[in-house]
């Protein structure tokens, strides 16, 4: 990370935030603030101009912020949100899924050259894909080769294992799952009012924590979000048990790319999810 450039960007961010709060463009701004640990930041909600200086911009700004807009779906004033590439795709996701109105948000674009987060390796959109104002100059994107080589590398490796090995791998992962639902709650593609998994009365899913129920949860979640996953990696980051959750959704994405052509979510503001449409010429392998 080019330090002086990013320090400058932080200063610009604070200045912009202050201005937006002063002139009433936004009601408050969601960004990142310090914690008591130097290598951790936490979401910060700045509502007063003087709070703008509490916003920080450094390599530890890893929390995704867009989904916080769902806490305030009908704001009186616009909500300012700092968006990196991934956050901006999350915004598109939520707009696409009719969960928020783009007009209710003021997007402060933060070109991001990667954070202390493994998912940033091979990032395909370092610069926000949608924003109202861009802080500083855009950063150089990863080459397409790098991004695409990285994108499904793990999946391809994994696919080479035998079915039993794969099952064993996942079964052990789901043995670890404590069903805290952090992966779901952080995910911008999970925006149901009431998750299927919480509907014990309907009986989709048992509440008991065991391998079988966690497997059902894991696969169902993968299927539910797989065609809309924006690949931000938050599910994996937040998992307290370290499950490689994105390897499930990415599998869906990889198959979608193989079967239906290039597909990347959250990059365009209007695109039907793959499972929300069909093509007469789709491959027919069911005979």
């Amino acid at each position: 990370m080019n330090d002086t450039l990013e320090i400058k960007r932080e200063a610009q961010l604070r200045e912009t935030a202050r201005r937006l709060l002063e002139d009433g463009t936004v009601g408050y701004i969601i960004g990142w603030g310090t914690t008591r640990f130097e290598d951790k930041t936490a979401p910060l909600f700045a509502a007063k101009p003087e709070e703008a200086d509490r916003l920080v911009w450094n390599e530890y700004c890893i929390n995704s912020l867009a989904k916080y807009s769902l806490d305030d779906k009908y704001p009186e004033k616009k909500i300012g949100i700092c968006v990196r590439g991934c956050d901006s795709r999350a915004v598109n996701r939520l707009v696409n899924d009719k969960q928020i109105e783009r007009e209710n948000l003021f997007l402060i674009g933060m070109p991001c050259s990667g954070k202390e987060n493994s998912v940033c390796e091979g990032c395909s959109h370092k610069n926000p894909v949608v924003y109202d104002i861009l802080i500083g100059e855009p950063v150089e994107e990863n080459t397409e080769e790098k991004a695409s080589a990285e994108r499904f590398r793990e999946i391809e490796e994994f696919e080479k294992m035998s079915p039993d090995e794969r099952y064993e791998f996942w079964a052990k992962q789901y043995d670890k799952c404590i069903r805290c639902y952090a992966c779901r709650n952080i995910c911008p593609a999970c925006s149901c009012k009431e998750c299927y998994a919480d509907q014990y009365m309907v009986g989709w899913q048992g509440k008991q924590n065991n391998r079988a129920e966690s497997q059902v949860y894991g696969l169902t979640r993968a299927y539910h979000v797989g065609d809309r996953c924006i690949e931000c990696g938050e599910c994996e980051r937040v998992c307290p048990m370290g499950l490689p959750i994105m390897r499930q959704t990415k599998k869906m994405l990889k198959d979608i790319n193989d079967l239906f052509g290039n597909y990347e979510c959250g990059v365009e503001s209007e695109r039907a999810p793959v499972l929300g449409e069909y093509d007469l010429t789709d491959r027919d392998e069911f005979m």
Partner: protein
Amino acid sequence: MSVEKNWEPKIIAFTCNWCTYTGADLAGLNRMKYPENVHLVRVPCSSRVNPQFILRAFQKGCDGVMVCGCHPGDCHYATGNYFTRRRFMLMKRLLEYNGIDPQRFQARWISGSEAAKFRDTMTQVTAQIRELGPNSKFQEKWYQEGGPENE
């Protein structure tokens, strides 16, 4: 896990009312014979089949699961099976990725007149699953009977 004596594969098939279910009825009318292992669940259209049903069937102890509908282009509701096709192409791959044997979940298009195809498919799938043996993957019973200590 040792194979129970007299074990018989348990196979569930979600079938569209207008095609495969009708095809199965025609097979009956023609007194065609196929194994007893296949149990049909009647749904109005294959697009009614939520992929979560498949997971549920494996979880509860089915050894094989099928989704059957009209041939693409022949859907009674015009476009339902196009959605079915997409949903299950992805779901099938996801299941296989998670270790399910490809033969344990199969989708097929069988029309109302294809009684012989229905019979042949069911016979063939039953044989394949018999060959594979009982399924323990995703199964809750496996857990209830001791879980990891079983292995």
